[in-house]
């Protein structure tokens, strides 16, 4: 539309203005044709001008309204006579928005622009196509969003003689936009709500877990203190009886007291092993890389190497470094090696082989002995708590050692398994999580 309409205003006596529209390309025809064309064009323009759904406002160069169409009257509630020659379109707009627009334009064009009519036509005056959204205010003070297109009107010498502002009521689109925004906001809110519900559930579960953990902690702390105390009394006073009155007791009496003591001590060992086992789940892993060989040597020394009162041959191959919690993995080696020593006790020469190899690309450590072994039919029970494969009088133990081994290995992400034959020794294998970092 910009630049295609020319308006000539006749400022007759100030009473009213008669606008005559000329459509380009009709000027040089014959008079009659011109008149016809003018009539046609006039009819067309009148139709456009009278459209009830477009507001057409034309102003003079200073912005004073010269023309106010039916659409404008309908939209804004003013009659043409209310506004023509009286006010500028700026007064039909939200004052605050006009100020904002003036400020924005001042910044954009680096020149001060007054927050009035200038702000509405500044761009159009410089030949820049300008369509903007502003809130218009009706005569009764109600408001509606409008889209306004501004065009400068020029005479034959290209001087600006006025402006044309064509506006449409943007309420419907605004409502659709708002509905869309509302829907989007609703969706966002729903998602936020779901997230917050989820978060709350996670928090609740975490709190429950922590409570359960704390309870377990308190329980094992109490076990650690309170269950051992009466056992000390049982063992201690049995010993006191033996010390003070031993000579007066018959042999059976002394033996029974020793049995009481052995029972108390066994229970003490059970409590300790169970607490160790229970603690394994709570304890954090502190992983690092360490020399497996030196750890194994330390363990062997703690187990009494080189065992002067029995014949033991330790065959330790070179062991690759381990990556894991050294304290816990020491417990693994301690349990496996003490088992190997225990179950070879009845051998003329105990042979314990320690080594590592690659199975399916994973470093696998093993402890092999030539001891009493076990029946592989029961292998699935091997790592269970309190599972024992031997009579207490043959081999002492609490039945927790291998359960501890398995739990530690599993916590490292590794695997533990055994291979054995009754009376032909056994081999225990384990792997560790390959590496902490890739």
């Amino acid at each position, binding site marked *: 539309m910009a630049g295609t309409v020319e308006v000539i205003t006749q400022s007759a006596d100030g009473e009213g203005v008669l606008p005559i529209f000329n459509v380009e390309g009709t000027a040089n025809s014959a008079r009659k044709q011109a008149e016809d064309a003018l009539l046609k064009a006039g009819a067309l323009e009148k139709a456009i001008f009278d459209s009830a759904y477009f507001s057409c406002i034309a102003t003079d160069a200073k912005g004073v309204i010269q023309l106010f169409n039916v659409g404008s009257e309908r939209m804004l509630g003013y009659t043409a006579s209310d506004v023509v020659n009286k006010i500028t379109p700026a007064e039909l707009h939200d004052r605050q928005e006009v100020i904002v627009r003036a400020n924005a334009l001042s910044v954009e064009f680096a020149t001060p622009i007054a927050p009035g009519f200038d702000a509405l036509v500044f761009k159009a005056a410089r030949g820049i196509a300008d369509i903007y959204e502003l809130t218009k205010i009706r005569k009764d003070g109600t408001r509606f969003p409008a889209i306004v297109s501004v065009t400068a009107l020029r005479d034959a010498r290209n001087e600006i003689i006025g402006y044309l502002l064509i506006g449409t009521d943007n309420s419907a689109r605004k409502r659709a936009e708002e509905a869309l925004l509302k829907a989007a906001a609703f969706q966002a809110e729903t998602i936020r709500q779901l997230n917050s519900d989820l978060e709350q559930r996670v928090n609740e579960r975490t709190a429950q877990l922590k409570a359960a953990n704390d309870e377990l902690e308190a329980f094992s*702390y109490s076990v*650690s203190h*309170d269950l051992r*105390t009466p056992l*000390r009394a049982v*063992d201690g006073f049995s*010993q*006191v009886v033996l010390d003070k009155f031993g000579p007066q007791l018959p042999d059976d009496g002394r033996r029974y007291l020793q049995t009481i*003591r052995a029972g108390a001590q066994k229970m003490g060992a059970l409590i300790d092993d169970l*607490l160790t086992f229970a603690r394994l789940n709570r304890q954090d892993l502190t992983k690092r890389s360490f020399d497996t060989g030196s750890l194994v040597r330390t363990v062997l020394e703690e187990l009494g190497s080189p065992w002067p009162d029995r014949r033991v041959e330790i065959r330790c191959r070179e062991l690759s470094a381990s990556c894991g919690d050294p304290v816990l993995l020491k417990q693994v080696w301690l349990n496996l090696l003490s088992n190997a020593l225990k179950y070879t006790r009845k051998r003329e020469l105990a042979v314990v082989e320690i080594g590592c190899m690659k199975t399916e690309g994973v470093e696998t450590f093993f402890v092999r002995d030539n001891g009493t072994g076990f029946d592989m039919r029961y292998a699935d029970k091997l790592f269970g708590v309190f599972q024992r494969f031997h009579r207490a009088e043959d081999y002492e133990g609490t039945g927790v050692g291998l359960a501890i081994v398995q739990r530690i290995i599993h916590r490292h992400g590794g695997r533990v398994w055994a291979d054995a034959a009754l009376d032909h020794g056994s081999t225990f294998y384990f792997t560790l999580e390959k590496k902490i970092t890739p």
Partner: protein
Amino acid sequence: MNEAHSVELMLVEDNPEDLELALLALREASPTCRIHIARDGAEALDFIFCEGPYGGRQIADVPNVILLDLKLPKIDGLDVLKRLKGDPRTKMIPVVVLTSSKEQRDVVESYELGVNSYIVKPVNFERFSEAVRNLGTYWQNLNQPPKVAG
């Protein structure tokens, strides 16, 4: 004999069986040792700091060594330890924690509070007696002749 130390060893223990066993082990190791017994943490602190029923005592008259159980009624062992090690008048008294607990947090906390030694009471009485005998450094302290002032 030793005028500065009317009490050579203080034993803080609430459990009567443990108390009797500890006394048996202590008597075996040092038959003439002057032992004071406190049955809870509050009584132990009253004695050391000469408060309450022990108001007539002199605070300088400290025991040579304190054997302290951790799980005690009223004021527990760790709090007793905190008071003793936090006071310049008493922080030099050797304290040996003697407890059932193998809990790592107790051990760590005791050492952080400045305990001199930590003994887990074994179920096996012979090992318990041995642990008491092994407090050798403190027993030597007990047998030192009195210091003569000036």
